[in-house]
């Protein structure tokens, strides 16, 4: 016998959801894999395994991971101060958090580039103090020569360097961490913190043993979202990175470049690698979270 749910429309809503998901997500993905099939295995390996492409993977995943990590820390602090304290202009700050969401990525890219170029507000400071730092280090016999984009003449170069990629990815990832953490922090019970304190825990112990474990799943979700977004980011990065082959090229840029050369199969091949890697990472992160949750 068919079981009836109290809520009507289960069949209809599920049908619509699955159809919508197929049209918007699954079919394009399938097509991606399909068009890669036109390549022979050797050509596929050549397309996705060239030195230039591998350098872009390293940059993209490395910078995205670091940016998400930094966002996890500072996003936590931002979310905490927005939830816990009532200060003048709180709503404005709250709205500002969404700016990276709302702005066209090209606009953020141009703005960040202008800010970080060697004549920009931030870029000029980095140049000045970067070179001072190098000179100071050399005087004390320390070797800073191995750090890229840092030397005694140009100082620290933010735009048109890997730092630039990192800055752009940090910028666009922040809202994800803050917005996923806010509800979790609001749900925190003040009594629980008082209980920890009454049992003799210091502020740090309370944070480490009580607050952090309760919001950790949300923090992980925020981190994952920021990481995923950074992996696929294109618009804001291409302006600030300078797109130097082997150095500051991100994978998305290589895909676009291949498309512009009508190398569709090559472009989709790289896309498939990105897709698989992203999917694998998301799976690992979500699976660890699932394990952690099941333990409870």
């Amino acid at each position, binding site marked *: 016998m068919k079981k009836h749910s109290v809520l009507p429309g289960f069949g209809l809503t599920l049908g619509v959801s699955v159809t919508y998901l197929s049209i918007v997500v699954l079919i394009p993905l399938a097509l991606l894999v399909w068009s890669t099939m036109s390549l022979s295995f050797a050509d596929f390996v050549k397309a996705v395994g060239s030195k230039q492409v591998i350098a872009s993977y390293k940059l993209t995943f490395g910078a995205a991971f670091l940016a998400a990590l930094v966002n996890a820390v500072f996003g936590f602090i931002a979310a905490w101060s927005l939830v816990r304290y009532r200060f003048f202009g709180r709503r404005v700050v709250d709205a500002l958090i969404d700016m990276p969401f709302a702005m066209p990525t090209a606009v953020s890219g141009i703005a960040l580039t202008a800010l970080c170029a060697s004549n920009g507000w931030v870029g000029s400071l980095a140049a000045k103090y970067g070179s001072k730092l190098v000179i100071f280090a050399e005087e004390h016999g320390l070797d800073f020569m191995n750090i890229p984009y840092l030397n005694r003449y140009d100082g620290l170069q933010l735009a048109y360097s890997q730092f630039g990629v990192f800055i752009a990815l940090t910028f666009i990832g922040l809202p994800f961490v803050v917005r996923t953490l806010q509800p979790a922090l609001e749900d925190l*019970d003040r*009594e*629980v913190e*008082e*209980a*920890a*304190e*009454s*049992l*003799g*825990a*210091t502020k740090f*112990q309370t944070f480490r*043993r*009580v607050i952090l*474990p*309760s919001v950790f799943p949300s923090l992980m979700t925020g981190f994952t979202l920021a990481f995923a977004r950074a992996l696929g980011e294109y618009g804001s990065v291409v302006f600030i990175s300078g797109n130097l082959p082997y150095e500051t090229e991100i994978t998305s840029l290589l895909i676009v470049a291949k498309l512009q050369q009508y190398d569709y199969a090559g472009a989709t091949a790289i896309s498939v690698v990105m897709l698989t890697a992203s999917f694998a990472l998301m799976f690992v992160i979500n699976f660890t979270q699932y394990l952690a949750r099941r333990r*409870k």
Partner: protein
Amino acid sequence: MGIEVKNINKRFGKFTALDNISLKIPDGELVALLGPSGSGKTTLLRIIAGLEEFEAGYNSDILFKNQSVVGNRIAERRVGFVFQHYALFRHQTVFENIAFGLRVRRGVNRISRAEIKRRVDELIHLIQLDGMESRYPDQLSGGQRQRVALARALAIEPKFLLLDEPFGALDARVRQNLRRWLRRLHDEIKLTSVFVTHDQEEALELADRVIVMNAGHIEQEGTPVEVFHHPKSAFVMDFLGSVNLFHGRVVAGQIVFDQSTDVKQEKFFVRPHEIELVPTDPQNVGFPAKIRRIQLAGSIAKIELSDHSEKEIFVEMSHEKYLLHKFKVGDTVSVVPTNTVVFEEDYVI
């Protein structure tokens, strides 16, 4: 003296939560802070614990075993605090929850893993949750959670135990059982304890002493028998059980209840069980009223009446007495108070 509170004030904006409160709690007693919501009882408990600041006034102080603890944080005061909603750590097991206070110790106070295990096991046995140490709070019933919260507070070997509405979130049966269990536990470990409640039955049944609070001040304190049988104010009498208010005059040494609300009338407070209902009243010592409702389910018979001005009167009597007269709804009977209480101050129920 266990806990001594002197001249404590607390205001929230314009609202006076505590109005110059002073009280003493002797060692080894189980004391109830009883009052309606908004009477300041929880605020007072939190101030004693050190979770809340108070306004320093003339000669205000809080003493634990004759030593001032003003300015000390809750951890330094070494009080076990049990929260109304348990405040258990949801991501930790029963064992971890109880061990928390021992695990966070630092420096010379650190104790070995084996010692922690020994003490926690002992507490788990005390709260009768043997075999449940690896469960998470979500997997426990309300009563079990409250016991874990209690064990967690006891683990730090506190000087005092403070409980904020400890049974407030539990259903009636569990509450009854847990209440008796807590009383037995207190008799066993003799730890000076203060609990906040708005339930007069709970306070009277459980406590050695009851402190009745109202609107930021202490109305009365004493043993349950004292506060119940000798209430100092109409508020206390009303709060510690239902009460009837009758109007009357004293004429030639006898009260005449004419139930009119004339200015010269006096107010008489009468408990429902201290009223006789008689079918006829030849000496005219009571006043007539009509039976509206009879409620027989329970250990006593409860009868609701109304007088000529439709004022409600509540009467309680034993089933034997009820059967003697065979009252029916609609009967007009005479209401004869057997014990009345008069207060000097004016009070409106």
